[in-house]
C-alpha cells in the first residue's frame, strides 16, 4: 500500500512520461524498431564469419575423428590375419612361423604339466 506522497509522486512521474514531446517520442519509436530489427537479424542470420568458422570446426572434427584410425600402429585387439600380413611383409618362411608357434604352445603345455607334476 502506497502512502499519499508516494501516490502523488507516481502520478507526477506518469504525467511526465505521458507528456513527452513529439520529437522525443519519434526518436524512441525509431530506436525501438531498430532494436527489434537487431534482435530479429541476430537470430535469423549468422554472420558470414561465424558460418565459415562453423564449417571449419566441423571439418576439423571430421579430420580429428579419422586421423587416429589412419595412424594407429598398435592394434588393441589381435585381428585374424594380422600375423600373416606381418609374415608377408617380413618375407619369413611360413613353416618357420608355424614351427615357432608350435614350440611356443608346446613349452606352455610342458611348463604347465611340469608345474603340476612338481606340485604333486
Amino acid at each position, binding site marked *: 500500500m502506497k502512502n*499519499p506522497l508516494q501516490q502523488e509522486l507516481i502520478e507526477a*512521474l506518469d504525467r511526465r*512520461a505521458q507528456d513527452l514531446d513529439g520529437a522525443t517520442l519519434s526518436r524512441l519509436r525509431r530506436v525501438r524498431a531498430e532494436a527489434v530489427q*537487431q534482435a530479429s537479424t541476430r537470430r535469423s542470420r549468422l554472420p558470414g564469419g561465424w558460418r565459415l568458422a562453423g564449417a571449419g570446426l566441423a571439418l576439423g572434427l571430421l579430420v580429428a575423428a579419422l586421423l587416429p584410425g589412419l595412424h594407429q600402429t598398435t592394434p588393441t585387439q589381435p585381428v585374424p590375419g594380422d600375423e600373416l600380413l606381418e609374415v608377408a611383409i617380413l618375407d619369413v618362411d611360413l613353416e618357420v612361423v608355424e614351427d615357432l608357434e608350435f614350440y611356443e604352445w608346446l613349452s606352455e603345455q610342458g611348463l604347465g604339466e611340469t608345474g603340476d607334476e612338481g606340485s604333486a
Partner: protein
Amino acid sequence: MSSFTAINHWMTGSVPEAPAEQSRHRALDAFLGDVERRAYVMAEMATRDPDEALDLVQDAMFAFARRYADKPQVEWAPLFHRVLQNRIRDWARRQKVRNRWRTWLHRGEDAGEEPLEQAPDPAVPPIEQQLDHLEATERLQQAVSELPLRQQQAFLLRVWEGLNVAQTAQAMGCSQGSVKTHLSRALGNLRSRLEEYHP
C-alpha cells in the same frame, strides 16, 4: 521448401522467420514500447540532459535486444533495467571524472576573475523562488531528480516501475538489503524535501 531455396538461404545467410519468432518479436516490440517512456524519464532525471538520456535509452535497448531477447519474458523487465541503470551509472562516473578535470583546468581562470563576476546573476531568481513558481507536478519531479543516483534508482524501479525487491536488486546490481536501505533513504529525503507541501 525446395532444396534450391534452402541452399539460397544458406548462401545469403537469411532464414525465413518462424511464427514463434514473429510472435516473440511482437512481444519484444510491445515490451520496449511499454517501457520506453519511463526509461527515458529515468535517464533524463539522472542526466538532466534530454540528448544524453535518449542516447542512454538507445544503447540500453540495443544491448538488451542483442543479449537478452532470447530470455524468458518474465525476466525482461529487470534485465532491461539492469542494462539501462548500468549505462546511467557509467555515464555518472564519466561525468564525475570529467567534472574533476574541468574544475582542475578552470581553477586558474576562476582565480583571476573579479568577485563580482562570480556572484549569482541577480536576474536569475534564487532556487527557493524558482521552486515557488513550479507547478506541483514539477516540484515532485524535481525532488526525485535531485535524489542521489542510487536512491533515485531504488525509488524509480521499486515504487514507479513496480519491480519487487529482488528484481530491483538485480536491476541495480546490489543486494536486496542495499535496495531497502537506498529506498528508505530516498523516501526520507523526499519527505523532508516536500514536507512543506505535504505536512
